[in-house]
């Protein structure tokens, strides 16, 4: 934003020159606002930064862009006055990047010209505001329909009563508002009659009375999240009377049990999504009475609940619309899976991650009829072998997403089948598997592949990866964490074959050198770059990334010992979009850290075990980086810096995390995996 402002001056200069030279004739003046707005819509869809460039062309473009923009997501709260006056038609104000939003900030929002157009505000990451700020906001922004107050742990019932003044409110998130009680919820129930969505997740002060009143007063409710509330069976009858209720989340409601559910006259007919994860006291008995008659149910989540037996599976019949079942972390039996397979035949999504008891027999009979299956998650199903994979690949040829981290008994040959039969795969997670280069070669046939995770695959090498680089041109995400067989040629293949790559992780691929980084610098869309523990990388490679990848947003170069201040200087100059950086164990000193202050977006830094960092250098850097939200520091700095400094930074919205781990030397990858297996056993 700071740069933005600086750049405006030359922009207007050229505009005036143009008008004088080109006889004050602008083709864009002939276009109506609607057409220009349509063009801008396309611009914004392809890359938000392009609209920024557009606004810098000339004064009229600047004005058009100001009128066009509907969504604002400011990086700093101190920009608020300027941007609110610049963009009068903003409908959504996302303040999730501004930790410090005071009552004054909210009063400012409510006073600007955009107050009438504002429909949605996100305060989920903001602190420091209270009852009075909220009251002025809702009283002045009469068209507000969405307020996200999640994590506002400081708010009390008075704040809830202020929210209740927003008579047109349709969506309200109150997650983790722990101090709000039934009284506040009662105010909201009475005040916000048009509510369609409300989330009470972790609102520990809300009980049956509040929930019941919401259900009685807000008849329009579509979506209700009661996760981890201390509610009991008593609130259920009122909830089930809601005529339009579609989404109901009862995750972790320990107070609801089979007896209460069995007493219900009827289930909820309109229900489309039901989440009963971690409900320890509900078995198939309660479930079947809750979903009896719920003919429109599409999505059912029973993660970490009672065991998936034949009886539970039988309660799922008469659900013709069911498309998604999530049973993560449950104990499952083969007969249960078999019954689900025969009762639910039009599944699109199935999740069995971390389930105990998934065998080849059970899984095969479950998927045998699921021709429409799009998403399958069998993470950590450690008993399945190539038999399951053969069944899955032969039936579910439409799979778009397959996640099978740590299926350790699946042999390397099985992955060839995945590539041969599932051509439509877009997301593939093969972390910690036996896949080898043959498998990768086969998978390279999936031309739509956009996300590929190959972490801890010790059998793959550059040969396999070069096939991916050659054919999977849509790849945006590649994870090679601890896949030690990968070196520069592999990365080069990816860099030249996958121009859209946005995220790459090559941590602990120890043979990676600067040439990999130089080749990756061609990928201009790269946003996340992680190369922990690559000792051969130097400042030179980092400089190439900084110059080439201007959209870089997250950088992790922990344990790259050879990166020094020389790498930080180009970074601070070119990577103006950097938000998050991890510099632990590098050779960066005070100078390098201080230079980062010129990146105005920078919000999170982790600086542990920097030998060249002094207390005063750190203090200067912390003060200079005005937008910091999160700083991870070694505990040894705590006594070295004045307490007042920390208080000041915390008042700006910064959170400190203190670590006191000893300096750790690195293990080699093979040894690391052996250690991991020791722990697993």
């Amino acid at each position, binding site marked *: 934003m700071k740069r933005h402002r600086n750049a405006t001056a030359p922009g207007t200069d050229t505009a005036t020159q143009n008008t004088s030279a080109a006889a004050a004739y602008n083709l864009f003046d002939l276009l109506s606002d609607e057409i220009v707005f349509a063009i801008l819509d396309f611009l914004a869809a392809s890359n938000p930064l392009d609209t920024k460039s557009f606004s810098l062309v000339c004064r009229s473009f600047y004005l058009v862009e100001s009128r066009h923009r509907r969504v604002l997501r400011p990086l700093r709260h101190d920009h608020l006055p300027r941007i609110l006056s610049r963009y009068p038609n903003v409908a959504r104000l996302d303040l999730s990047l501004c930790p410090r939003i*005071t009552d004054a900030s909210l009063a400012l929002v409510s006073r600007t010209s955009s107050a009438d157009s504002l429909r949605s505000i996100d305060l989920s990451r903001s602190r*420091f505001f*209270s*009852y009075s700020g909220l009251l002025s906001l809702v009283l002045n922004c009469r068209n507000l329909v969405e307020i996200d107050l999640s994590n506002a742990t400081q708010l*009390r019932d008075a704040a809830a009563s202020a929210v209740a003044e927003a008579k047109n409110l349709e969506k309200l998130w109150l997650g983790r508002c722990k101090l709000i009680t039934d009284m506040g919820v009662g*105010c909201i129930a009475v005040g916000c009659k048009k509510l369609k969505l409300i989330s009470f997740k972790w609102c520990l002060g809300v009980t049956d*009375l509040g929930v019941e009143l919401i259900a009685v007063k807000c008849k329009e409710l579509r979506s209700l999240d009661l996760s981890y509330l201390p509610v009991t069976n008593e609130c259920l009858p009122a909830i089930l009377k809601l005529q339009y209720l579609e989404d109901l989340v009862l995750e972790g409601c320990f107070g609801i049990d089979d007896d209460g559910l069995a007493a219900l006259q009827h289930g909820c007919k309109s229900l489309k999504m039901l989440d009963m994860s971690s409900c320890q006291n509900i078995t198939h008995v309660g479930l079947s009475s809750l979903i009896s008659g719920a003919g429109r149910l599409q999505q059912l989540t029973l993660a970490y609940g009672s065991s998936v037996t034949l009886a539970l599976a039988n309660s799922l019949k008469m659900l013709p619309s069911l498309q998604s079942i999530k049973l993560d972390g449950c104990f499952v039996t083969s007969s249960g899976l078999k019954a689900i397979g025969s009762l639910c035949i039009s599944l699109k999504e199935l999740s069995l991650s971390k389930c105990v008891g998934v065998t080849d027999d059970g899984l095969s009979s479950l998927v045998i009829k699921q021709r429409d299956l799009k998403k399958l998650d069998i993470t950590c199903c450690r008993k399945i072998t190539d038999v399951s994979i053969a069944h899955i690949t032969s039936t579910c040829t439409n799979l778009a997403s397959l996640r099978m981290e740590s299926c350790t008994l699946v042999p390397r040959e099985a992955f060839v089948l995945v590539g041969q039969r599932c051509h439509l795969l877009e997301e593939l997670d093969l972390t910690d598997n036996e896949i080898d280069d043959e498998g990768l070669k086969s998978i390279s046939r999936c031309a739509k592949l956009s996300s590929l995770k190959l972490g801890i695959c010790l059998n793959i090498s550059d040969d396999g990866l070069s096939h991916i680089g050659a054919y999977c041109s849509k790849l945006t995400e590649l994870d090679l964490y601890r896949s030690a067989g990968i070196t520069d040629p592999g990365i080069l293949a990816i860099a030249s074959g996958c121009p859209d790559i946005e995220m790459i992780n090559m941590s602990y691929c120890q043979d990676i050198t600067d040439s990999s980084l130089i080749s990756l610098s061609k990928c201009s869309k790269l946003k996340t770059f992680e190369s922990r523990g690559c000792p051969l990388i130097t400042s030179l490679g980092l400089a190439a990334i900084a110059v080439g990848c201007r959209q870089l947003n997250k950088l992790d170069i922990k344990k790259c010992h050879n990166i020094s201040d020389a790498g930080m200087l180009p970074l601070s100059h070119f990577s103006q979009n950097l938000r998050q950086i991890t510099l632990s164990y590098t050779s960066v000193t005070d100078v390098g850290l201080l230079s980062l202050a010129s990146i105005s977006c920078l919000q999170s830094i982790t600086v542990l075990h920097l030998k060249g960092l002094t207390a005063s250098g750190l203090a200067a850097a912390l003060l*200079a980086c005005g937008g910091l939200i999160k700083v991870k520091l070694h505990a040894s700095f705590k006594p070295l810096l004045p307490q*007042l*400094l920390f208080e000041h930074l915390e008042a700006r919205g910064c959170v400190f995390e203190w670590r006191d781990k000893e300096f750790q030397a690195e293990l080699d990858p093979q040894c690391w995996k052996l250690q991991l297996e020791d722990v697993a056993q």
Partner: protein
Amino acid sequence: MVHLIITRKGQVPSKPDEVLTQQQQQLITADLTSIIVQLISTAGTLLPSVKTIGQFGQFTPKPAAVSPEQQQQQQSNNSMDVEHNYSTTEEHEEHEDGETEHLPPGSYEILQLEKEEILAPHTHFCTICGKGFKRDANLRMHMRGHGDEYKTPAALAKPPTVKEVGSAAEPVIIKRYSCPFSGCKRNKDHKKFQPLKTILCVKNHYKCNTKKFSVMADLKTHEKHCGRDKWLCSCGTTFSRKDKLFGHIALFQGHTPAIPPDETKTVVALAPTDAAAAANKLADGSGLATMDFNSGAQALMDFKSVDDPAGAAAVASCFSPLNFDSCNFVGGFPEFNRQGFDDSEASFSFLLSGGSCNYSSQKTGGES
């Protein structure tokens, strides 16, 4: 009627251990209660025939489930006079219908203790003046000051009960207590004054009002009798139980829970002043941040001056638990708040004019 009693009298003692079904017992109890009431009303006419009443006095307590002590006491006092009989019945009734006590004004003596006296951790109280003591021995020494009858060795050995005093001396003057908190319903100057019955009531009631009760769980049950209802609706109705309030709100359109005033105050000013203080103390490198904090604090003050009077007015009028009787209708509904918002001066002065609101308006004034 006398005939009826006599027949009953013949029945009951003749088979005292016979199995009387509950229904029968209840029937008898109901009969007798009505008889008692009738008897009292006709007491004046029956006065000459002392004998009948003596019999009655001997008999009544037995089926009417009075504590055994009282039975004993009454049986031992066979030669009880009419007046005493009258007072025991009255006491009995009082116990039955808890707080709805309707003593005519002037029929009792009002005692009002000092605040310090109430809050002191005393357990022994003088039945005459209400003064409290930590030790019973000190109370007994204190009692000597109330007259010669307390100076006897017997009186010093064991504190006399009210009844004994009453029976010994002239008819007892009923004592009731007033809360020293002016504006409180339990204060003797309140127009709807409801006296507190015992010194223990005073103690607990006063703690309710000074908000020290939250740690004392047993006070919750006591609240009912103290006239301090915790759950308020915007319409001014108060409830002793939260579920009753929510039932009420579910039933009526436009009614909403009223949030106690202390919640709106605590958070408001904290964060910005902190930040401003930190910014002032620390001469930091980035001028941007300092400026921001100053402007932030200033903006907040502006904001307060715009919004707070109305907010405070709403708070003062709507949420003060102590005076909802007299003025809750002013700010109880949110709609009224809005009016106050436009013309904050007017609403504020209106509040100040209300006599019983003094306390709360002072409080909010000090706050802003």
